[in-house]
């Protein structure tokens, strides 16, 4: 711990439930990046390793400051995202609580490591701050990154605003570290629209922190030579060419996805469910996630003011996908619009593959590559759709 003459405040250990639901909250005027750093501060994180990339850099700086103040135990700027994510993996395998963050091209570079996290059964939390990937180069907001993360085995939350970014990051640690879950959580925030949007965020006291991570609860022992060293690596089952090996590998993969499903009850407990539904009996339903949900929410309010019968479903949790809740919420709607901040419409595909009669679904509007989707655009599409179909 560096001696920089800063007094480190004594902190009280509280439960995630207390922090999320009972603790008094103070209003602060913060950008999304600061909100997630405030969550890291209260999550009693041991180790942060990061590499700078727009629009994620601010949280990387802030975690460095937290380390300098003794509020996290170790920190460094790595050499690139792949090796940052491997280092995070090494530390989490060693049984400490880890935070990292990246964005767009960084996610793509780190994908080999990220795809290994769930199989290692690591409860680390990574903030993804979505921006465009590929060519043409683009630093602006885009949620296409989630499409690449969908089948990694990670739990994925999609935040609507900086307040969500704080609350869902705290919940992420509590959920990821459940013994029957113990897989990583991706907390995804749309770049700039959330990461750089400044608004009032309500925070519990800085003097309260989660209890330290206890690796003894992990379903796979920490790598520390404090448990029995059997002749079998914790993460390397299918190196031998025989049926038992392949079978072990197959069931290991199934177990990762089963662990995701076991997270549902904790998601319900700590996040009030995987979806937020307003006016479920409405004729027209807007289904969205992330900052597209914010725009859809405003479009719904305005549409209702204009006399349209419109409801709203915000999908907070993308993995495990809240299939039952979405099917239930979509039961009565005649028209379903799915506004998204990406070109390909991955959320529409997720919904379409689950609900009945998906000709009801209009997979749009979609705006991408940094462009803005004003609520007026969603409203306009709603009017067109209702006009054309009724």
């Amino acid at each position, binding site marked *: 711990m560096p001696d920089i003459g800063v007094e480190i405040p004594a902190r009280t250990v509280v439960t995630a439930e207390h922090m999320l639901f009972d603790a008094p909250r103070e209003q602060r005027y913060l950008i999304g990046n600061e909100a997630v750093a405030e969550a890291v501060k209260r999550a009693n994180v*041991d*180790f942060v*390793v990061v590499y700078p990339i727009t629009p994620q850099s601010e949280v990387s700086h802030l975690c460095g400051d937290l380390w300098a103040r003794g509020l996290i*135990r*170790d920190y*460094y700027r*790595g*050499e*690139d995202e*792949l*090796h*940052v994510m*491997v*280092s*995070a*993996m*090494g*530390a*989490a*395998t*060693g*049984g*400490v609580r*880890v935070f990292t963050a990246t964005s767009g091209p960084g996610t793509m570079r780190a994908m*080999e*490591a990220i795809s*290994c996290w769930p199989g290692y059964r690591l409860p680390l939390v990574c903030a993804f701050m979505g921006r465009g990937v590929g060519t043409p180069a683009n630093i602006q907001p885009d949620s296409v990154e989630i499409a690449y993360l969908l089948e990694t085995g990670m739990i994925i939350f999609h935040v609507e605003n900086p307040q969500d970014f704080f609350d869902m990051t705290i919940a992420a640690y509590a959920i990821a570290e459940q013994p029957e879950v113990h897989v990583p959580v991706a907390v995804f925030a749309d770049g700039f629209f959330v990461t750089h949007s400044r608004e009032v965020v309500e925070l519990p006291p800085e003097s309260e922190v989660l209890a330290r991570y206890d*690796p003894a609860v992990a379903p796979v*022992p920490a*790598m*520390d*030579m*404090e*448990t*029995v*060293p*059997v*002749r*079998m*690596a*914790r*993460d*390397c*089952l299918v*190196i*031998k060419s025989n049926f038992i090996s392949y079978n072990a590998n197959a069931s290991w993969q199934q177990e990762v996805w089963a662990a995701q499903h076991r997270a549902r009850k904790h998601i319900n407990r700590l996040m009030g469910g995987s979806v937020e539904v307003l006016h479920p009996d409405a004729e027209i339903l807007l289904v969205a996630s992330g900052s597209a949900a914010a725009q859809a929410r405003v479009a719904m309010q305005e549409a209702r003011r204009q006399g349209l019968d419109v409801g709203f479903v915000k999908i907070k949790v993308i993995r495990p996908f809240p299939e039952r809740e979405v099917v239930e919420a979509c039961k009565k709607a005649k028209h379903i619009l799915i506004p998204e901040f990406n070109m390909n419409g991955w959320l529409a595909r997720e919904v379409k593959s689950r609900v009945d009669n998906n000709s009801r679904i209009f997979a749009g509007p979609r705006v991408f590559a940094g462009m803005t989707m004003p609520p007026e655009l969603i409203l306009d599409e709603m009017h067109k759709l209702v006009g054309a179909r009724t």
Partner: protein
Amino acid sequence: MDVIKPAPGFEDILPLEYQELVADGPYGRSLGVKDLGTFKELIEDHPLCAGCNLTLSFRLLLASLPKPEDTLIVTTAGCFGVIHPQIALHASIAPFGTQNAFASGLTRAMRIRFPEKQKDVITIGGDGSFADIGMAPTTHSWFRGEKFASFMLDNECYANTGGQASGMTPEGVVLNMAPKGKSFDKIPFVEIAKLAGCAYVATASPTKPRQVESMVRRAILVAREVGPTFVRLACVCATNYKLTPIEAHRKSKELVSQTDEYMTEAAREYLESLEGAA
């Protein structure tokens, strides 16, 4: 050490293999290469080629660990990957070439969790995983001064994928993907290790077991207190260089004709303080 021992009453239901490790393994016993054949080794029965010098290096390396009961091994893809799951220590396979990035995080985690206890983290990789695909994370772990030892099993090619030329293949050698002969000479990785801040750098040949032992121990001891360390184990691939086991052994011996050991002043002082006392 207590971790190794089964709770009373459970001894006989454990696999024979494990019972033998408890009764006769190297944990907490300061054994070395001279004792090979007299104790239950951390690694036995490998599935690699006959005459494999890399496997011999691996065996000698494990027999030389100063404190096996607190040693954590990070490896990566390579022929040794098939030996890896049989090591009777906590070991993990990092994505190819990323072993030193993994060990950077792991070492820091050990320091956070066990500030009073020495945990020896070591990385083991091939020439490709250190000098080609893993050049950046390896050298950056050294620039950062990460305190763990790195061991390169230099068989001068990619053997696991079918005998391709690597950066550590000598110039002119014809291997897969170098059909006209490798176009440049061996990457001067030992020199790079010195420039990148390693406190101890050595090259050993598995044909000299006592030398391997000395260098492995020194690398691990220096990494505890002084800084990063690196040992290259020269073990040319018998199969892909089309050598008989005897020829491969001879070649590995020729590759390290003289003692090649470098250490910083701080490392020398530290080793003298330890070895003088011993």
